[in-house]
């Protein structure tokens, strides 16, 4: 018998504790799954599941063996993964640490689909460090936040996304559907590290000042604990997070602008970089709600007689 495959069935049944559900997950019918578990039990000489009650339960022996079985299955998977990687090129990619996890996952999956022979090695790096890493060749391609200026870099298509504000869910400002930057006056702001995102820092803070929001303090970090605690607000894309509320910003004053970036001289992997850029554009549009950069609307200042009297 193929012991590893049988152990994989065992771990899935142990997770589901339901033969029907486990069979669906494994993409097979239930009778052969039951049969294989029975064969595994014969092979090991112990009963793994207690099927006497109405529900399926792990026996003591089953519980004892489950951890070991998982370890074996994971190691075999890793073995196959390493074998695959040994064959192809590796593309080292930098992504911002605060990019949505779902977007990173979609990026990796999307790229694997069109370039299965190239292994993607993503690393979480802020924009400024990506610029250095690109220059040093530590990464081949980055996903950077604009504005960024660095000699010798080329950029992919710029995508934009209007940012909203994240507030603690009991914040009184959540009563309105849309928050104006001026409404945030007197609050503290949480932003990504200034050293890592200098361009973003300068641009966001200048927009805030222009619209009547001068944060009493600017905190730096990627975690949202301060927002959850009600001690600060943060800007970001629409998100549903426990304990937090997201509101759009009136007039869309804060825009996130990202693109891929690579060194002009990276000719050797240029074709792969192009593929990655295309996947990045598609994924960020489909999965992260970004859009092509349009014309920047002219800022309009409403005129009220009281401003001049």
């Amino acid at each position: 018998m193929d012991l590893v495959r049988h152990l994989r069935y065992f771990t899935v049944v142990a997770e589901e504790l339901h033969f029907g559900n486990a069979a669906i997950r494994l993409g097979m019918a239930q009778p052969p799954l039951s049969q294989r578990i029975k064969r595994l039990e014969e092979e090991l000489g112990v009963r793994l599941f207690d099927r006497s009650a109405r529900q399926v339960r792990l026996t003591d022996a089953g519980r004892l063996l489950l951890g070991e079985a998982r370890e074996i299955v994971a190691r075999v998977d890793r073995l196959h993964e390493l074998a695959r990687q040994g064959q192809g090129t590796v593309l080292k990619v930098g992504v911002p640490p605060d990019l949505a996890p779902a977007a990173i996952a979609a990026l990796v999956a999307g790229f694997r689909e069109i370039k299965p022979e190239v292994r993607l090695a993503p690393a979480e790096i802020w924009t400024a460090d990506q610029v250095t890493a690109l220059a040093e060749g530590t990464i081949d391609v980055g996903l950077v936040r604009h504005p960024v200026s660095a000699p010798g870099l080329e950029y992919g298509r710029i995508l934009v996304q209007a940012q909203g504000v994240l507030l603690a869910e009991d914040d009184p400002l959540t009563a309105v559907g849309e928050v104006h930057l001026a409404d945030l006056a007197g609050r503290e702001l949480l932003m990504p590290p200034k050293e890592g995102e200098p361009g973003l820092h300068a641009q966001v803070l200048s927009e805030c000042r222009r619209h009547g929001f001068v944060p009493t303090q600017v905190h730096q970090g990627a975690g949202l604990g301060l927002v959850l605690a009600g001690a600060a607000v943060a800007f970001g894309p629409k998100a549903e997070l426990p304990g937090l509320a997201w509101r759009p910003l009136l007039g869309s004053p804060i825009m996130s602008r990202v693109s891929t970036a690579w060194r002009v001289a990276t000719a050797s992997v240029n074709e792969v970089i192009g593929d990655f850029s295309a996947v990045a554009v598609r994924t960020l549009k489909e999965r992260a709600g970004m859009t092509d950069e349009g014309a920047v609307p002219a800022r309009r200042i409403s005129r009220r007689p009281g401003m001049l009297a």
Partner: protein
Amino acid sequence: MSAPDFDTLFSTAGVRGWLHAADIDSGREVGHGADVPLPTASMFKVPLLVEFCRQADAGLLDPSDRVTVPAAGRSSGPTGISAMLDEVTLSLRDLAYLMIAVSDNGSADVLLARVGREAVNTMLAALGLHGTRVLQSCQEFNDSMREDAGHPWPFVDPDDVARLRALDPERTNRSTPREMSALFGMIWRDEAASAESCAWMRAALNKQVWPHRLASGFPYDDVAVSGKTGTAPTLRTESGVVEYPDGRRYAVAVFTRSFSTALNQPRADAVIGTAARMAVDHLRR
């Protein structure tokens, strides 16, 4: 989603309130007692402005015609030529500007005499605004309060206030929240008069000086607020248009009656802005 809790908002400011707000382009609307007939006080100057423009469009008057208004016999009021001491000579359209920007009663009554109140009412009926009527000039409005109270301003005795015809929509200039916001919608959509006249009306309404009511709800550089207030004892109103940076625009009319007869009630003024903001926010969700 359900409409905001306007009742609680108004009552915490010490007033009863009625309002109507509509997206000028989509027609999406929210109301709170939107069809209740209410006194307009100085907001009647908006239909007067519209009829003035329509007569100019029709060639019945020349807005640049200069008129001399003697010092004696001018309608009383705290602003504009009502507050000035000497004879003035101004064009009709500059009188109209003063009537809107600072709610000048003197200018309004000169224009009302020129345009004719029946013409204003005929225009309102033609626009389908059957709940809006102009019955009194500013001077008649002020005189009626003096007669009803038996003494000149101020009117702060609740018994006096209860007697005022100026607060009875049957006997004074009247409208409804829905019709006031509808009229503003027509001005913003170039339907109330010629496009050129509507643009000029919008500019005049945008020059209104008062920041304490509708505009107070939108304290943002990139949001434009235009409007016309109306005030009488316990009555505070404003109708106008709020324009957002994304180009969407909303006609809003808010009427309030305060429980107290005190003349200074900043919260009662500010709740007009707060209610308007809630209504617009609701329309944008």
